[in-house]
Structure formats: C-alpha cells, structure tokens
C-alpha cells in the first residue's frame, strides 16, 4: 500500500491534485521503502530537519546515489559547472551565498528589489497589453513564462537586444528540467546540453565585458565587487548566474500560474483582490502554503545517524522533505485544505527554511504580488477554460504547462 504512494506522487496521473496522496503520506511521518529515500511529510519534522546541521545538501555526502525512483531523473546541471551554493554546505555555501547577496539584498543593497518595482510593473503592463485575443489566453506562454525571464535578464544585466536569445536558451533548459519519459531522451539531452553551453559562453562573454566596464547590474557586481570574501571566479559567477536563472524562473512561473488558477477557483477572493491590490500580500503567502511551486526538496542527505519520530535514518541516506505535505499538515494549520488568505498565522514552508531558504524570495514575492494584482485588475470577468489545466511532467517543480483562460476584455 505505502509502496505505492511515492510512485503515485511521481505518476503524472496525480499531478493535478497530489494532495490526497500527501495526506496518505503524512500517516507514515518517516516513510521509507526498500532502497528508496526517507520521506518526511509532517510540518514540524520538516521544519526542524531544515535547521538540522546533520543534514547536508552536498551530493558528495550521499553514501550511494540512493535510488530516488523515477524522480532521480530530475535532470540537474549535468554540465561542467561547479555546484551552485544550493548544492553546497557551509562554509562554501555561506561564502558564495553571501557574495551573491551583496549586490542583491541587505545589508549592502537593501533597496535593490524594492527599486525594481517600477520596472516590474512596466514589464507586467507590457505583457498584458500584448494580449490580443481575450477569448483565449494561455496565461503560461503569454504571461507567467516570459515575465520572470525578462526580470532575470534585467537583474543580471543582459542587454535588451539579447533578451530574445536568452529567452530561448532558458526555455530549452527549463524544458529539460521536466523529465518527460515520452520524448527521445538522447535528443533532449543533446539539445539542452547545447543550450547550456551556448548560454554559458554567452554569459562568460558578458562577464568579460563587465569586468572591463562594470555597470550596476548583478553580473558586474558579482564579477568585480570585492568584499571581505574576495571576488568570485568566472566559474563561480557562471554557476551562480545559472542558478539564479533556473531557480528564479522555473519557480516564479508556477507561483504565478498556480496563483491565477487558485484565484479563478475562488472568485470571491479574486474579486476582493481586484478592489484592493494590497490583498496580494497575504494572498501570495497563502499561495506559497497552499500550492507551493517547489513541492519537495529531494537532494538532502544525512552526515550522521539521526532519529526522527523513533526511526533511525542512517548516515548517508537520501532524504526527501515534502514541503507541500507539511504545508497542509492539520497539526500545524487549521483547515489546511482551504485556501484562506485571511489566516494570520502562516509560517509556511513554501520557501524552505534555514540556510538554504529561498534566496530569491523577496523578488519572487514582489513579482507574484504585482502579477496577480495587475491580472485581477485588468482582466475583465476572467474564467478558466479547462479545469484542471494540463500540468508539466515534473512532480518537484509542479505547475500547469498551459493555463487556458478567457475574459471579456482588457481594462486599461
């Protein structure tokens, strides 16, 4: 019975609504089967493991590349780049994350995200203005996909004229994160490898330019700014930029799309948001709990034997932390399966927690808040054309592949 749960979670048939499976999983808080991973699904357990220094994010600590089931195919950077800080432990993690943070957030750059407000709004307006036939809109292709890529371009300092090339590399790489057993694996691997190489070469060129003539974009600052931690090597800048691109974009697409889907399923909330854009703040927090773009964290391992709820997880074991299951744990949240932006107490796991908690969270929040409030304000009488919409294959970074909607017109 339990054996089936993981397979079912991975099984595409359950993609549109995995939550009943998560509820089943929570009945075995430390779920382990044969040579599979140890799966943790309760809120408090996940929360404490995310702060546990006996848990490593560094794949080199895995005893054996524990058969993570079909999900192990979760294609990652099979490039020659060194691991990004997402896949490292302290002290390397801390050093790289700190250096990346210097040009991005407090204390050195406290206003960077805030100051992008106007620019983000322009991008959002531009995309909505570009919708020509309101009777059939694919929200993913026409809005939630291009938005974060454009934002990342601006943040990194990719020249406007190159944004289109950048978009197409990003699309290919993102598509390769979406394990699709149906497609020709070799062909896909080749295409994505080429895209990565081209993107890498492009970025390396940009970095060279910025070293000579720095601007106030993040690439310039990552490749030139000296601080107490020194300067990043070109390879480090490259893997950091790749991380920002992939992580910052694949997730935000889903946050916005899941958001609009949820709002369309809860028209009263959508209507409230239309009248009061400030409601976007609690709505986005509740979304991060209710439909988190990152459903689970599969790349953790133990550096010691540890005990969770009486079960000993041996050193070197592979660990899955199912954030989305924890977010709906009835021991933590009242009426967890209800989308309720008015709940006050909402310490969700949507951005993880601890030292690897989402680096881009402030930007993702702002992007989603602006996107949803503007969509609510400008789309006249929006409705879903398909429910559930078609989902991506990926069970980890879960979200609709398309979101066909219609509306009566676009408000100015």
């Amino acid at each position: 019975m339990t054996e089936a749960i993981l397979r079912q979670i991975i099984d595409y048939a359950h993609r549109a609504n995995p939550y009943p499976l998560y509820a089943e999983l929570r009945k075995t808080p430390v779920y382990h089967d044969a040579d599979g991973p140890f799966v943790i699904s309760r809120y408090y357990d996940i929360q404490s493991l995310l702060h546990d220094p006996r848990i490593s994010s560094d794949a080199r600590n895995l005893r054996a590349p524990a058969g993570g089931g079909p999900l192990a195919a979760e294609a990652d950077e099979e490039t020659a780049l060194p691991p990004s800080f997402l896949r490292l432990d302290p002290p390397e993690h801390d050093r790289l994350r700190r250096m990346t943070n210097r040009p991005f957030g407090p204390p050195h750059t406290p206003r960077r995200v805030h100051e992008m407000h106007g620019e983000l709004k322009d991008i959002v307006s531009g995309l909505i203005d570009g919708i020509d036939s309101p009777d059939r809109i694919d929200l993913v292709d026409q809005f939630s996909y291009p938005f974060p890529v454009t934002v990342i371009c601006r943040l990194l300092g990719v020249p406007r004229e190159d944004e289109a090339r950048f978009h197409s590399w990003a699309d290919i790489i993102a598509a390769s994160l979406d394990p699709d057993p149906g497609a020709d694996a070799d062909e896909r691997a080749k295409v994505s490898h080429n895209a990565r190489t081209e993107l890498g070469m492009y970025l390396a060129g940009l970095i060279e330019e910025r070293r000579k003539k720095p601007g106030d974009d993040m690439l310039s600052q990552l490749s030139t700014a000296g601080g107490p931690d020194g300067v990043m090597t070109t390879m480090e800048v490259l893997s950091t930029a790749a991380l920002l691109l992939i992580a910052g974009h694949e997730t935000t697409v889903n946050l916005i799309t899941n958001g609009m889907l949820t709002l369309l399923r809860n028209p009263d909330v959508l209507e409230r948001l239309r009248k009061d854009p400030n409601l976007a703040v609690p709505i986005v927090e509740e979304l991060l709990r209710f439909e988190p773009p990152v459903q689970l964290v599969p790349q953790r391992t133990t550096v010691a034997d540890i005990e969770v709820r009486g079960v000993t997880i041996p050193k070197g074991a592979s660990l899955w932390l199912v954030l989305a299951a924890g977010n709906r744990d009835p021991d933590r949240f009242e009426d967890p399966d209800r989308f309720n932006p008015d709940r006050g107490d909402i310490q969700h796991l949507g951005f993880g927690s601890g030292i690897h908690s989402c680096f881009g969270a402030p930007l993702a929040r702002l992007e989603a808040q602006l996107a949803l409030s503007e969509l609510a304000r400008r789309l006249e009488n929006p409705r879903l054309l398909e429910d559930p919409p078609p989902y991506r294959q990926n069970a980890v970074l879960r979200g609709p592949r398309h979101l066909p909607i219609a509306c009566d017109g676009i408000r100015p």
Partner: protein
Amino acid sequence: MSADGSLDRLKREGRIVVVGASLAGLRAAETLREEGFAGSLTMIGDEPYEPYDRPPLSKQVLLGRATADRTGLPRHRAIDAQWRLGVPATGLDMAARRVRLADGDEVEYDRLLIATGVRARPWPQEDEAELDGVFVLRTRDDADALERSLAQGPRRVLVIGAGFTGSEIASACRERGIAVTVAERADAPLVGALGGVVGEVAAELHRKHGVDLRCGVMVTRLEGDSAGHVRAAHFSDGNTIQADVVVVSLGAQRNTEWLAGSGLGAGPRGIACDAGCRAFDIRGIVTDDIYVAGDVARSPHPLFGYQFLSLEHWGNAVAQAETAAHNMLSDSADRRPHIWVPAFWSSQFGVNIKSVGVPSMGTEILIAQGSRSEHRFTGVYGYQGRVIGAVTFDQTKWLQFYQQLIETTAPFPPAFPTVDRRPEGQQPMPADFPDPSVPTHGPTVTLSGYAPDDRRLTFTPARH
C-alpha cells in the same frame, strides 16, 4: 474560583491595574483584551510616553537612522485603557488592594500586574555622574540626549562596561567614525553573559573596528572641567584618558523600591514569582491577585533545575506578559507556566549575535559549527553532561536546532558530526565564566530562630 462565578465577574466588570507601561505592560494589556477581559484597565507608567521599544535605542537611534520618538511599539489591538502616564506608582497596599500614585491618587484593583522593569545603574559617584557629557542608556530620553551629543562630533567617547549595551554603543560610535575607548573590568567584553572563550571573539571584533578596548581595568574617577563638563577619566592601572562623552553601561537595577514595606517579596534581585507569574510575598507564599512580568520578574524554570531566572530579554518580557495576562483570567487548572526558553539577540560591529538557553550556567563550550577566527560560529554550552545554552555569531539559522537540544536535555558534548565542524570543534573547552561565588547583592531574606514557633523570616529591604 469560577465555581462561584467570581472569575466571570472579574472578566466582565473587574478592575485590572498594570504598573509599568512598557513592553511587558502593553503586551499583557493586549492579551487581557484578547482573552475577553471587558472590565476597567488602568496603565500606570512613570515615563511620559506611550509604550516604546528599547532595543533600537542602542542601535538605529544611536546611528542616527531613527529618532527616539519613532520607536513606539506597534499595537496589536485596541486596549481601551485609562492611561496614567508620567506618574510613578509609589506604594502598594496589598490588604486593601490599592496602588498609591505619586500625585496622591490611589487606584483599586482586583488583579495587579507589576511590570516596572529595570533602570540603568548610574555612576556611583554622584557628583561625577552629574557632569555634563555623562550618560546612561535605558530610556527614550537617554537615547535622545546621547544621540544629540554624538551628532556634535565628540573627540572621544568612553564607554564604561562592555556588556551587550556597552558594546552596541561602542559599535555605533565606530560606525559614525567617532573615536571610542571601552573600559571593562573583566578580561573581555560579554564575559558575564557568554564566557571568556566567546568574549575573546568579542574583543577581536572591538579591536578590528578600531575600538580602544581596555580590559581588566576599572574606571576610578571621572574628571570635569571648570564648566562642569566631563573631560577625562582615570583608570585603576594608573592611566588617564581624555573623553568628552562618557556612557556608563554598568547593567541595571530592578525598579522595586516603590514596593518597600508592602509585604511583597520584592528586592534588588527583582520580584520572585511562581512559574505562573504570581508574585510571592515576603513569607514565600504565593499571592493570588498580584502578577509579575518582564525584566523585573524572577521566576523558577523547570528546565534549568527550577532556578529563579531574571532575564533582561525582550522576548521574555513578551512571553511572560502573555502568560501572566492569561493566568490572571484563568482558573488554576487552566493556568499556564512560563517556560520560555531564554533567547537574546544583539547586533554589534556588523555581527548578529544570538543566544538561547542559559549560556552563563555552562561550564564548557564546544564550537559546533563554523570558526571563531572567522567570527562566524555556533558555540554550544555544556553543564553537567547536558546542553544548557548556545550562541551564534552570524549563524542564526542554526540556532533552532540547538534550542531543541536544550529543550530535550541532550547530552553534552553532542556526539554527532555536523556540516561545517572544524578541527577546533572536535573537543569541548572550559567556557571560562567569572567565578560565580563573587558576592552580588547579598541575601534579601534571612531566617532566624530554632523552634517552629520561633522561626521568623526577615526581609531586608533593597539597598540599591
């Protein structure tokens, strides 16, 4: 108690008085209303201001980034209280259930919450303390005055005492480019709270940021010029330094004098109360209608051998206030203990310092993660084979894990490896706290007599 309906009556039309209108007082008042108290609520505070927040006073305010009048505490809900601000309470009549005020008024209560906190310990030589340019830092007015004098660009500031507040003041001065000397009697800053091993790191931080740090010395005398402005300080090692601003940062004294003679067990170490925040009288008998919360309270903690802890921690004031307020309106079966795990934060010299548990009980320390030389580490304190406290320098995100070890009385030293454990963290070392047997305030209660009939408790009033 509610069997006879008195609790319902209290909730409906009772009178609750809160003395001390600051963090603990305000949060208690909010909780009282939250839990359905509809009677009359009186907030008595000797400061003329509505409740404000103190941590920013030694940080943002001294840096000139916020003004002292902008530190008002956020309100979680309306409390609909009668405010008696700018009027100290001067006495308590426990039998008549009345609080006396300095303006001669008296206020009757059915339940009383005492949250009078602490005040800065002044410079002991009164004439020297009165010199222009000599400051303490506890209140909004203190911060305002000190900030104004820093803004005038003093040539040198002397900070006496390198505890958390003194260190934060020194840090703010350096950030503003002001020359600063810090004098500390112990061998390093923060030694009382965190021990010598961590104190050494704190000393490095001071020096790295250009503080003229003098440890193992005492300031013996402050010297003024003819206009009555401080100009120099003399040290026990025979040295003299010139300084035109002196900040006395020698810790705090509990505001309990107003309770002298009331029969409440209040003294220089604070007001003892049970884990449910009910105050003891001088006989050690718990009262039913007087509660205590915040910096002025001393309460037993089951996790720390039922030791009576007095904590000058922001988070403690909030948690204890909420518990006190809840218990004031509850039957004995519904009362909750205040078993908050102590936690404290500070920020100085660009480093975020946090601690949990009671590090000062620790005899040993292990650097569980990171490295002292990088000023980024997690130290775990051990006491009799268990984990009793932890501190992080710029590693806050790990602290929760160590708090769990403290809560579960995990063995010390922790037997497992962690990510980022360096060679220096393989073995515990003595935590190096000053000798705890050094006398502090002396006894506040003495016992006399032999036969049971003869046995008497004598209360020695506070000599602050």
